[in-house]
């Protein structure tokens, strides 16, 4: 272990020196490095488990080395290699080399920007958008450390892009009168290859055109289509999932209030051409939002209303990050019977194998514990209702509070004419004690997020009634002890109780049956840790967490885990 750490540090020093040596206009190196060590201790509290290992250790050292070549001013070539050594590998046997990314970007005639290879792309929440699940949306002080790395590995970035392979181009036209500019973006990417799957090449293509009338008004139209490239295999059925949307946004100021109003509306189709069994699913949506900001009072508000049809299908916007059909790698089987262990919050925060990177047609299965109201983001079909956010921040930045609510209903019933109602409420508060106590060069922050999500339906018959309630809360503490050395702590709980009837869909994403989902469980993560900030991009964390899973009439176990995390971006 000591040797590995020494080698890692040596490698990073070499990388740093190469960076310094090679940094020039034509060629430079960028990337990231990471060293992770986990130590888990499992305790089965449901039975005298003599089969599951008590202690597990794992970890790896990893370096992403990116080469940036700028042969001339209008072309940039980027290539990144990942070198990873899992603990336990010796003399190279545990070392893997992967190409993490390759792309070429540039400008043609100072007009058209293009990018080939790996591209990170998004459009609107209804066309092409990478939605984090509710459980992942607000990671805490401790849980956010491994989750950031998982998201880095999977190319899930804060701007909600999906990593794709293909080509993209954009250009803009400027006008003298009436409108300022027209921005045009086009892309096409290959989702799967006919060589690797039993089917045609599947492409995802589209683009947008945005007309900027002025600083106050813009109008845009978007198009995205997941489609099979006919003739690339012997397949005789061809997926088509086009989505057309149109957006309007206006921003203006009235007295001291900044207003922003936006509307997006559109429709979709989903079918498999030449498949006599396949239905044609068509539907539309609209989503209107009004935002207001009063900087003088530190107040921001948003209210929105949306209606997304039950048959609205948009693969680029509805694909899930989490593959809920998978099981965690750590302690995948537990108990004397070695039953499969279901995924938990702890796993979602640190196990990249639970996620997927490709967009998928139709609607994937989801776990209602972690978001039953909007599992597919704003584009979740069969939802209609209001949402709102109020945010107040103290003008001296000493504290802030934010409340968010979403009250949705089914547009049409599932299995009955009675409609389900989904209510999600969250309150977040942050107290910056270092500002209150006027502690210079230190951070002392307390924050809490408390929320619940209820799914209810009542009908004439008992079997129509559902009632599923999820409650979650997260409390964080950050305290700078000295210099760049912080003490951090987190307490995170998630619990769900009740019953819902979940739709079981066929391969065409049409409901063919319902299954009863009944649960009474809670899980929690409590932990403390230290973090040292070498620089803004280089951190060292030492974390200790205890995770508890408690499910009525089922599993009850605990995993204590310590983690060392060294992360660096360069």
């Amino acid at each position, binding site marked *: 272990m000591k040797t590995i750490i020494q080698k890692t540090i040596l490698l990073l020093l070499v990388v740093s020196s190469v960076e310094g040596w090679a940094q020039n206009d034509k060629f430079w190196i960028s990337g990231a490095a990471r060293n992770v060590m986990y130590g888990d201790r499992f305790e089965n509290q449901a039975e005298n488990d003599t089969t599951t290992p008590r202690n597990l250790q794992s970890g790896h050292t990893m370096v992403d080395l990116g080469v940036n070549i700028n042969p001339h001013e209008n072309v940039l070539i980027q290539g990144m290699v990942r070198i990873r050594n899992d603990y336990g590998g010796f003399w190279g046997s545990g070392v893997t080399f992967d190409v993490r990314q390759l792309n070429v970007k540039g400008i043609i005639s100072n007009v058209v920007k293009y990018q080939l290879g790996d591209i990170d792309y998004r459009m609107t929440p209804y066309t092409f958008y990478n939605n984090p699940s509710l459980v992942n949306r607000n990671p805490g002080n401790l849980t956010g450390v491994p989750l950031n790395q998982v998201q880095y590995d999977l190319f899930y970035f804060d701007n909600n892009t999906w990593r794709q392979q293909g080509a993209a181009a954009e250009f803009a036209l400027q006008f003298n009168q009436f409108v300022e500019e027209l921005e045009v973006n086009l892309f096409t990417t290959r989702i799967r290859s006919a060589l690797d799957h039993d089917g045609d090449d599947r492409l995802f293509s589209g683009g947008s055109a945005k007309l900027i009338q002025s600083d106050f008004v813009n109008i845009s139209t978007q198009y995205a289509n997941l489609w099979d490239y006919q003739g690339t295999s012997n397949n005789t059925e061809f997926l088509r999932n086009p989505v057309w949307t*149109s957006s309007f946004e206006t921003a203006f100021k009235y007295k001291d209030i900044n207003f922003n109003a936006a509307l997006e509306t559109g429709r979709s189709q989903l079918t498999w051409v030449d498949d006599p069994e396949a239905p044609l699913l068509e539907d*539309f949506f*609209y989503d209107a939002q009004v935002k207001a900001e009063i900087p003088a009072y530190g107040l921001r508000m948003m209210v929105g209303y949306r209606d997304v049809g039950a048959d609205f299908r948009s693969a680029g916007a509805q694909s899930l990050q989490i593959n809920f059909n998978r099981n965690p790698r750590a302690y995948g089987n537990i108990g004397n019977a070695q039953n499969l262990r279901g995924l938990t919050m702890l796993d979602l925060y640190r196990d990249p194998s639970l996620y997927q990177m490709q967009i998928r047609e139709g609607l994937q299965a989801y776990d209602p514990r972690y978001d039953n109201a909007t599992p597919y983001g704003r584009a979740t079909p069969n939802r209609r209702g209001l949402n709102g956010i109020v945010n107040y921040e103290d003008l001296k930045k000493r504290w802030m509070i934010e409340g968010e609510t979403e009250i949705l209903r089914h547009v049409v*019933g599932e299995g*009955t004419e009675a409609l389900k109602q989904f209510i999600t409420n969250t309150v977040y508060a942050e107290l910056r004690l270092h500002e209150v106590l006027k502690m210079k060069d230190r951070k002392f922050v307390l924050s809490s997020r408390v929320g619940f999500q209820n799914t209810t339906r009542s009908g004439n*018959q008992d*079997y129509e009634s559902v009632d599923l309630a999820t409650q979650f809360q997260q409390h964080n503490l950050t305290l700078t002890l000295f210099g760049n050395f912080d003490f951090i702590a987190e307490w995170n709980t998630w619990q769900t109780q009740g019953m819902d009837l979940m*739709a079981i869909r066929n391969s065409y994403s049409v*409901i*063919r049956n319902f299954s009863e989902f009944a649960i009474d469980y809670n899980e929690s993560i409590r932990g403390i840790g230290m973090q040292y900030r070498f620089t803004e991009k280089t951190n060292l964390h030492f974390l200790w967490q205890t995770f508890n899973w408690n499910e009525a009439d089922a599993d009850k176990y605990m995993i204590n885990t310590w983690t060392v995390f060294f992360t660096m971006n360069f």
Partner: protein
Amino acid sequence: MKYLITSLFLFSLFFISCDRDKSVQGPLLDDIYGEFSLLEPFTTSTNAVDFSTGEQVVFEATFGKQVNWEIHIEGQTSGAKRIIEGFSSTINATNAVWNGRTNVLPMFKTEPCRAYLLVPNEDNFSSDTLSISVLGERVTPGFVVTDFESGFNSGWNTFLQSGANMNFRIVESPLAAQGNFYYEMGGEVPFDFLIGLIEFPASAQQLQRYPLSTNPNNVYFNVFLYKPENIRNEFILFRFLEDDNEDGTLQNNEDVYSFETRSLQPGWQQISIRYSDLVNLVNGQPAPPAGNGVLEPHKLARIDVLLLADPSTGYSQLYMDNLIFTENQPLQP
């Protein structure tokens, strides 16, 4: 600005005004979880039916929710079976009509039948058993080569090897797939694959050629075959001899198309083949036809049926019934 807002407003209206399917998504919960009940009992429109005149039987029943249901009809003499299935809360003329067809051979004969209703997901449910007398058999459309009901036609030719237990004959039995007679073929020939054959020339029906369509894609040959439980070595070859030059004689330079079938299941089964799927076989392998090479069902002059078996495998046996040509689709028994 106002133009922009107006156009956007109109554009949005376009989408918002779109029609939407407001029907409930998925199967009804009432059908999955609702309590089962029989609101109207299982009945039949008649207790006696003559299918030969086009009469039908209509079954009726009403449930308290939609269910999967099955109506079983069984011939008391032949053992013929017909199952009508559906998923609905009402059984009536739209989904439960019996016109004399069968699912499991033999075909229904003039015989007493019983009918009962099953609801597979309701273990405790049982309906009354209804009696229906079949007064006349259903007439299947098509050109009948033979159903062996009229005895051995003197125009047919047979050839039997000098083997053991050779048995090529018409048998009368209520278990015949159609009517009361079938043709039995059996024997043991230790020196050759061929056990015996029977030829059905069109001339046996006072015809020069069989009166079939000119389009081989529309013509289907159908036959019922029965394999006894203990037979493992059977295979049967059908040959279709065309009179290419239409001179009334069959010569070696005219087309012969064939198909053979093996590995039959025990009991009666229907074999149907589209005329355009026939090929010329030489020693069991496809080969160019000797004649004009054009599939011409309207020139078909003779059908040969050959019972074969590996000489080392001993006794073989098959029954055959109801050789019939149909148009556009296989025989619907």
